[in-house]
């Protein structure tokens, strides 16, 4: 039968504004989280990671926040640029289950100039 593709949520922001992309993860035993950016025709590109013993981590123009109580992860991008337009995935690694990453469905970020 015909496979049904995911209907990804889309976030549209104006160039220069801040973006917040959210992710609800599934397993309370997850101990490591990564945000990836995927541009059309490319593989997932590492943006930033965070371990479960932290609740915030900052990189260049990006910040990841982790709320373990509600199993929520967010990626904040400051001063969003057209080059930030892509699909953003969160991925989790479950403690004690080897190294495999479980990816979320993704969010499309569109930056309007």
């Amino acid at each position: 039968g015909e496979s049904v593709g995911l209907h990804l949520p889309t976030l549209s922001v104006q160039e220069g504004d801040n973006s917040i992309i959210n992710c609800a993860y599934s397993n309370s035993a997850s101990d490591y989280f990564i945000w990836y950016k995927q541009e059309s025709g490319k593989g997932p590109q590492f943006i930033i990671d965070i371990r479960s013993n932290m609740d915030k981590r900052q990189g260049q123009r990006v910040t990841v926040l982790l709320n373990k109580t509600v199993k929520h992860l967010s990626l904040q991008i400051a001063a969003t640029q057209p080059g930030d337009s892509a699909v953003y995935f969160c991925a989790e690694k479950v403690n004690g289950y080897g190294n495999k990453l479980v990816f979320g469905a993704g969010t499309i970020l569109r930056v309007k100039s």
Partner: protein
Amino acid sequence: EPEVTQTPSHQVTQMGQEVILRCVPISNHLYFYWYRQILGQKVEFLVSFYNNEISEKSEIFDDQFSVERPDGSNFTLKIRSTKLEDSAMYFCASSPLTGAFNQPQHFGDGTRLSIL
């Protein structure tokens, strides 16, 4: 900056044929992975490989799949008898360490596999 490279970028194969997808992980990395992404769907884990053996595999990775590190630089994924549903983007990834020292996995740009 070192990167994971994959070849070919696009592979078209008849159903039932064998296909080998090739990857060159980042040179000082120790852990290697294959993931796939069916069009419009999530990235899914297939297999991880460490110290010349499979360390974990998913239910997708059945007897038709195998992985090999034939030399010091290449890491391959073989599908013995391809099916239509194997059509997907296949991503190779590598990471330097594992376990308590969580390290990000770095991905290649993938091989688009089309089964006819």
